[in-house]
């Protein structure tokens, strides 16, 4: 570019190039907005649909894009804007604390959601849905983010968990609290079943086989009529009780025991806190595991399998534990899903669900816990937010995903926190190392023995 070739001309406005860019931006905006803003459907008096063109509004929107792009080009030119320089020096120190506060702030917000939105059933349901996906995302993060095993059939374990609870409750009358661990165990058992045949596969091949596994589970649920009732699904799944107290308007119910007025919301709030606790347990276990040898072995496996083997890591066990661990949390989430819905059918466990959870993990930043939580909230919240766009929702959604991937190719939170620290880089502080190792090595010994 001529502007770059001679330093002296750098300051000169390159009007032609600026106009070109602005025009290009306007053209893109026109392409996108023409469908989203330019046309609108109306129902006529006779019930038929007709299209209303809105060229004026469209012109205004495209004009805004053109003018703002031109202004940006003329003001900034080739210069890259350094966001840091816009912050006054006095504010930099407080601002640096912000990222550290993000996780506690989100947690506090999650805790008080039922208080803020007590009257708003819609928001509570949305919160429960988001937390379910946060939990699924954290579970899949173990398999995909930490161990680096691309799993496109994660929904299978979610389904195993849901059907485990539904069937155990139907046939044996087990309560939710007994079924929850059983569902986790069964799901992790299926995780190992899937793990064995795919031990030698990586990347694309692994993805295809896991995807097939997800479909197989769904088709079995659909066709094993005598056990699963096929496409009719299972209804009347018992609701969870508050440690034995059912949520009903009868003596001995939750409301009566605590002297409250019976309200339908009690159960919703309880479900909300239940999934919040389940998700936090998933998070806590993952964070702990990352600092233990097994967690480090997962990460090393993601980086290089051959090196792992030459360092004495049993890659077979490492992969199987990753699959089993990820599947277990999906199983927990599945039995929660069953008890919340009260009805499940194979329709709830399609490939779209797997893709959704995987998208959450990838967008959040593989391996990052907070990133996954934020991505789940953004994706599902965004889904709801753009509900009025109706058919264009997927378009907006796809565009948003593309933009995120351009802006942050490694996900929203791309940085990986090391699991061992030393106090000073120049001086190896033996005490620090010993402390870090004391935590983890006792576990490792137990594993090796």
């Amino acid at each position: 570019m001529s502007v770059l070739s001679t330093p002296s001309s750098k300051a000169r406005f390159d009007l032609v190039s600026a106009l070109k860019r602005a025009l290009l931006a306007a053209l893109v905006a026109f392409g996108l907005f023409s469908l989203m803003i330019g046309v609108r459907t109306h129902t006529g008096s006779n019930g038929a649909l007709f299209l209303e063109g809105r060229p004026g509004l469209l012109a205004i929107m495209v004009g805004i894009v053109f003018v703002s792009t031109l202004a940006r080009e003329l003001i900034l030119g080739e210069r890259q804007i350094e966001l840091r320089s816009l912050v006054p020096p006095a504010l930099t120190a407080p601002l640096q604390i912000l990222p550290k506060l993000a996780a506690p702030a989100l947690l506090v917000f999650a805790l008080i959601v039922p208080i803020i939105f007590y009257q708003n059933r819609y928001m509570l349901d949305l919160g429960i849905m988001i937390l379910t996906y946060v939990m699924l995302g954290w579970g899949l993060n173990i398999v995909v983010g930490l161990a680096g095993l691309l799993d496109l059939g994660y929904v299978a374990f979610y389904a195993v968990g849901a059907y485990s609870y539904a069937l155990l409750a139907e046939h044996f009358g087990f309560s939710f609290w007994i079924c929850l661990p059983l569902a986790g165990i069964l799901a992790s058992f299926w995780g190992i079943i899937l793990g064995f045949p795919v031990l030698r596969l990586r990347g694309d091949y692994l993805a295809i086989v896991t995807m097939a596994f997800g479909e197989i589970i769904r088709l079995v649920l659909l066709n094993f009529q005598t056990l699963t009732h096929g496409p009719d699904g299972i209804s009347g799944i018992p609701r969870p009780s508050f440690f034995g107290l059912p949520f009903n308007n009868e003596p001995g119910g939750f409301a009566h025991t605590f002297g409250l007025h019976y309200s339908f919301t009690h159960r919703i709030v309880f479900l909300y806190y239940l999934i919040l606790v389940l998700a936090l347990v998933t998070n806590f276990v993952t964070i702990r595991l990352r600092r233990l040898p097994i967690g480090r072995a997962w990460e090393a496996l993601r980086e290089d399998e051959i090196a792992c083997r030459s360092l004495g890591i049993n890659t077979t066990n490492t992969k199987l534990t990753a699959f089993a661990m990820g599947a277990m949390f999906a199983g927990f989430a599945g039995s929660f899903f069953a008890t919340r819905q009260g009805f499940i059918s194979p329709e709830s466990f399609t490939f779209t669900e797997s893709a959704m959870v995987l998208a959450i993990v990838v967008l959040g930043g593989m391996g990052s816990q907070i990133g996954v939580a934020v991505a789940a909230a953004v994706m599902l919240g965004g889904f709801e937010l753009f509900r009025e766009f109706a058919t264009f929702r997927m378009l907006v959604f796809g565009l948003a995903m593309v933009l995120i991937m351009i802006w942050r190719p490694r996900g929203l939170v791309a940085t990986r926190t090391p699991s061992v620290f030393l106090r000073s880089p120049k001086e190896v502080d033996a005490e620090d190392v010993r402390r870090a190792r004391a935590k983890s090595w006792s576990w490792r010994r137990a594993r090796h023995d």
Partner: protein
Amino acid sequence: MNAPSATTGNTPMLAVRGVKTYYGNIIALKGIDLDIHAGEIVAMIGANGAGKSTLMMTIFGDPRPREGQVLFEGRDITGMPAHEIARLNIAQSPEGRRIFGRMTVMENLQMGATVTDNAHFEEDLERVFRLFPRLKERVHQRGGTLSGGEQQMLAIGRALMSRPRLLLLDEPSLGLAPLLVKQIFDAIRELNEREKLTVFLVEQNAFHALKLAHRGYVMVNGLITLSGPGRELLQRPEVRAAYLEGGRH
């Protein structure tokens, strides 16, 4: 040392006996015999595709040889899974370094200590840092951000963290500047002289490798064609013609 050394008398530390390795129907090693005695540095040189790395990998359990035996201190380790071989105090720095790119130097070294007892971790860490002070400076850096030479140091350092009695190095000079090659080879010599560490290295850089090694082997097309003391091999006209003249790298 975990176990009293079984290398008494004439039993070599590592013995390869008539090993034939195939990739499918293609024969890569056509019957290799090789001895490595305790305290030695042994180098295997040969051109690209001669089968050097295949031999290294066969010793480490993957691929498994179709015929022949690999003996470590008299014990048959043929066909043992790689992670179990690593537990016998044999360490390998595989071809192409293969460090864990997103993990820090510290974490990489910690992974190296997977098979050892934790009691002497700090001591081992200090030993690696003494050998490669550069790693100490970069202890919190991600492995992937290190330069090629530093990555090679890390790969060797990681292998040393398991307190090996036998260290296998696959092309430690690959892709390094001459000065760095010298640094790496000096470190290997130091380990051998000071700690009597037994080293088996596979190299294309015949000049440096044979100068360093007590004994050397020359491999051509899956067969060992020459063997002898390193410096003697360096003088052999066929070695000079094939690997040295026309540019010592």
